[in-house]
């Protein structure tokens, strides 16, 4: 049994749906080491006492992106449900943020938990007795049926069609390769390496789109993230309030009042949008404000769209130049806005226009230009093909994981062809890619390849 319990499992423990908070749980020998890799809080995670709760952030160690602010609970074996080291992460919002965190766990060596697996471990580790275990078995069975129904209904429709069609293409490639390997004496057309590469690449591109769709899925579910940046007192908080129609941020005339990130969900032309107001992006000696500034930079990186707010009254100042420099690499996803046209100084406004020709003029105070801004935001979303009707969306982290594995297999296959490897080797990676897609739709590849050979190729004695 020990062999099966050497890995660490993870899953979202709260129900799928829109909730204020979601809990991600992981259990197993690597739970603490994975947590210490992705959690940044006060002090060292390893030194936290067992059964204590800590505030901090989940970050992606690959690029230091902040995923969410969380509360993390550390529970050391054996006083846990599974009798293994266990970590629970409480994060904001519903399924999507939680899936992102879960995805991060998977990328760091955690395996998706099977239905009922926490309970199974609780039993196997002697935490619950046989009678309880048998009761749980019934639950697992019924739950599996239910969850497989859910999975099926989720997969009904375009996503499963799409994945099936990609898998079928891989199976056909395999059959074409295999028939030549298994029936060399027959005159079937040999699969040329470059043709094969082309075919693989086309599946690869479509897979990649699907995986990117996971991100769009998030946008549609939780709203596109729009970061509002600009120097202090340019009117960021006022704009946020104007767009959300509520007084949420504390607005004063003293620069630097908004010291932390403020978020607000708004509905722009039917599109859910998450507005993020950042602290002013200025060089500061003020310790508290400095945290806010750093945060703002992180938000710029992770957001889908940036609104850079300038001030028609104060003109293009050094601070704006600093921000412009920072925004430069996100230019593709930035809308430039100049506020306070009600108090504009023509000369200073022209200075701004010289540097940023297409700047959008608004006045939050007079409510002018706001409609145009809303339309711009809406159009940006559509420009990125986030079309709710035609985009096939991947929303499930497990599906995403298998899509990514499949993508990685295809990369290896392409590299193997590039390196001049023989077809018996290339087929290993293609088969693995097809199998990973099969895990999503529940198909076995091996039998299918054999059937496909006999259907398509004429062989006989």
């Amino acid at each position, binding site marked *: 049994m020990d062999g099966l319990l050497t890995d660490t499992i993870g899953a979202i423990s709260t129900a799928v749906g829109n909730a204020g908070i979601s809990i991600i749980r992981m259990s197993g020998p690597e739970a603490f080491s994975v947590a210490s890799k992705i959690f940044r809080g006060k002090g060292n995670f390893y030194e936290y006492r067992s059964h204590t709760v800590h505030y901090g952030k989940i970050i992606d160690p690959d690029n230091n992106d902040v995923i969410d602010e969380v509360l993390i609970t550390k529970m050391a074996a054996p006083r846990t449900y599974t009798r293994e080291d266990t970590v629970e992460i409480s994060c904001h919002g519903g399924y999507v943020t939680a899936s992102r965190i879960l995805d991060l766990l998977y990328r760091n060596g955690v395996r998706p938990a099977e*239905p009922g697996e926490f309970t*199974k471990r609780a039993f196997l580790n002697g935490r619950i007795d046989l009678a309880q275990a048998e009761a749980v078995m019934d639950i697992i069975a019924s739950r599996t049926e239910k969850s497989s129904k859910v999975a099926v209904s989720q997969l009904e429709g375009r996503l499963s069609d799409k994945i099936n069609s990609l898998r079928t293409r891989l199976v056909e490639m395999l059959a074409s390769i295999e028939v030549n390997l298994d029936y060399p004496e027959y005159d079937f057309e040999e699969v040329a390496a470059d043709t094969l590469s082309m075919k693989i690449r086309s599946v690869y591109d479509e897979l990649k789109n699907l995986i990117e769709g996971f991100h769009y899925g998030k946008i549609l579910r939780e709203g596109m993230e729009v970061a509002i940046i600009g120097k202090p007192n340019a009117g960021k908080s006022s704009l946020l309030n104007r767009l959300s129609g509520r007084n949420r941020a504390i607005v004063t005339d003293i620069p630097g009042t908004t010291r932390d990130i403020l978020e607000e969900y708004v509905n722009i032309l039917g599109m859910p949008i998450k507005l993020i107001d950042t602290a002013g992006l200025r060089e500061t000696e003020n310790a508290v404000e400095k945290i806010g500034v750093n945060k703002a930079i992180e938000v710029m990186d992770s957001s889908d769209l940036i609104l850079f707010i300038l001030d028609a009254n104060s003109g293009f100042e050094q601070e704006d130049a600093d921000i412009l420099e920072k925004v430069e690499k996100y230019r593709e996803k930035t809308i430039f806005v100049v506020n306070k046209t009600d108090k504009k100084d023509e000369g200073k406004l022209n200075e701004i226009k010289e540097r940023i020709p297409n700047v959008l003029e608004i006045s939050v105070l007079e409510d002018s230009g706001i409609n145009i801004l809303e339309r711009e935001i809406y159009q940006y979303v559509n420009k990125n093909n986030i079309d709710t009707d035609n985009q096939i969306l991947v929303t499930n982290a497990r599906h995403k994981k298998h899509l990514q594995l499949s993508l990685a297999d295809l990369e290896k296959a392409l590299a193997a062809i590039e390196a001049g490897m023989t077809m*018996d*080797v290339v087929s*290993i990676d293609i088969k693995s890619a097809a199998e990973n897609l099969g895990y999503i739709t529940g198909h076995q590849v*091996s039998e299918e390849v054999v059937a496909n050979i006999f259907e398509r190729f*004429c062989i006989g*004695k």
Partner: protein
Amino acid sequence: MSRNCSNQNSYDVIVIGAGHAGCEAALAAARMGAQTAIFSMNLDSVANMPCNPNIGGTAKGHLVREIDALGGEMGKCADKTLIQSRMLNTAKGPAVYSLRAQIDRRSYQREMKHTLELQENLDLIQAEITDILVENNRVTGVRSHLGTVFNAKAVILTTGTYLKGRIVVGDVVYSGGPDGLLPANRLSESLKKFGIELLRFKTGTPARINRRSIDFSRMEIQHGDNPIVPFSFEHETIEREQVPCYLTYTTEKTHRIIRENLHRSALFGGIIEGIGPRYCPSIEDKIVRFADKERHQVFVEPMGLDTEEFYLQGFSTSMPVDVQIEMIRSLPGLENARIMRYAYAIEYDCINPLDLKLSLEFKNIDGLFSAGQINGSSGYEEAAAQGLIAGINAVLKIKGEQPLILDRSQAYIGVLIDDLVTKGTNEPYRMMTSRAEYRLHLRQDNADARLTPIGYKIGLIKEDRYKKFLIKQQSISNEIKRLKSKTVPPSDKVNEFLKRHSSSPISTGIKLYDLLKRPEITYEALKEIDDGMPDLPRSFAEQVSVSVKYEGYIAKQLQQIEQFKKMEQRLIPEDIDYEKIPGLRIEARQKLARQRPASIGQASRISGVSPADISVLLIYLDAKRKRGGKQ
């Protein structure tokens, strides 16, 4: 196992049928020390090849290598009697290199029969076995058509396609065995009596043509390889003159003749009910299913050196005789063909392999084993592989030892048997490389490394061969070590060499090992810039080269194998009661109860058993183990 010299009626192991499965089974049993008898209805048909006169080919060649590595006979016999040999797939990678040889059919039979005759502990007897004898679900012996009872501790069924054989040529149907021999009509009833389910399968064979009537100038010629690579690891080289094979194609006329006479084909006319294999369709099947294909290949192969008979591979048919002649004469080079044997289809009884354990013993009859085409497989090599395993396991059973079960990561033999007894088959099962998950590990060049230690342990590999094997493994690993440690400094000579092989030049020193990893640099070529290269035999060099070039992929497969083994090693107790496991879905419960898998791994391959069912099973087994531990 002592011999009662006065009594020729009492044996440890009895083998029914002396085809390719039977011969391996009997030789293995006798060589392991069991008193063995092998029965054939006609001693002149021992080890016959009623269909194609060749051994090996893709995946099948792997099987022959594995049989040899375990101490079986097929590879040695084929080496002695081959008349043409080719290594197929040499451009497609080491996992699928496949040895295929044309065999002098009569020589092979003579050679194998003589080997049986010379084998200590073995009696070769002509008789038709009509009954198996079973008491309390335990086999006790067999009865012959003459009424003689032979007692045995274990019995192996290797009846091939003989059981209730039915020959079909067009609309002519008669009771008959393969190759003009008699069928075995009575044993089926005896098997049924003991609750053994019988299926009806079908296969077929093409016509044989007299060489004098063939115009080879109108065909493509195919020569053998030089040098010949032997099947057996005991042979390093074979010096022999080879004969060519020929290739011709169907024509538009052939297709027209077939289409016009489709209603007269037994297949399409509905006379044949048995399930035929997808990979071995008759020519009329091919024309119908692949209507767009303009022509099909027909291989024209010699049946032996002292015969003028030629075999038409790719042209099997169940058409009546007059259509057969017309069809054959529409092939270029065969316009004046004189047919010596007509093509026929054959239907026969076989068992349902789901009734067998992985050891090839019946689940519900103790001591009764089954191997070869009767298990629903196809092909001489598949048959021989099963025969060898059944023979070994019959003896281990008598000795009270654990059976030899090769898993899917150890051998094609393991894949073959696991597929048959775990998934079953609804057509004659042919081995293919694409059926093996760990193909890069299950290569034909390393079959000895995988299996010879096992053959040695069970006593089929003798001491001197084992010693040679150990030396070979040692020199292979020494050579890999040497390649890893020796650095080639950059020089004009080396870079000129690399340039000549279209390989990028080096500016710093590089290990020989890393040079060999480049696809364009072969081990043989490396000799030019490597003065320390030892003079290794071909088979050694092949393994060195493959191990280095494919190291990354092989390592990956070995990792997967480790995962796979974990599940295979979780055994399910034989007395498990699936009815008592809460939470199993009904379909899974029925399938598991019917098939009684030996391990969690095997259970997971049964169609209709889901991963969730496996979880439930795992939990139950652990609960049971824990409860057992407490009591």
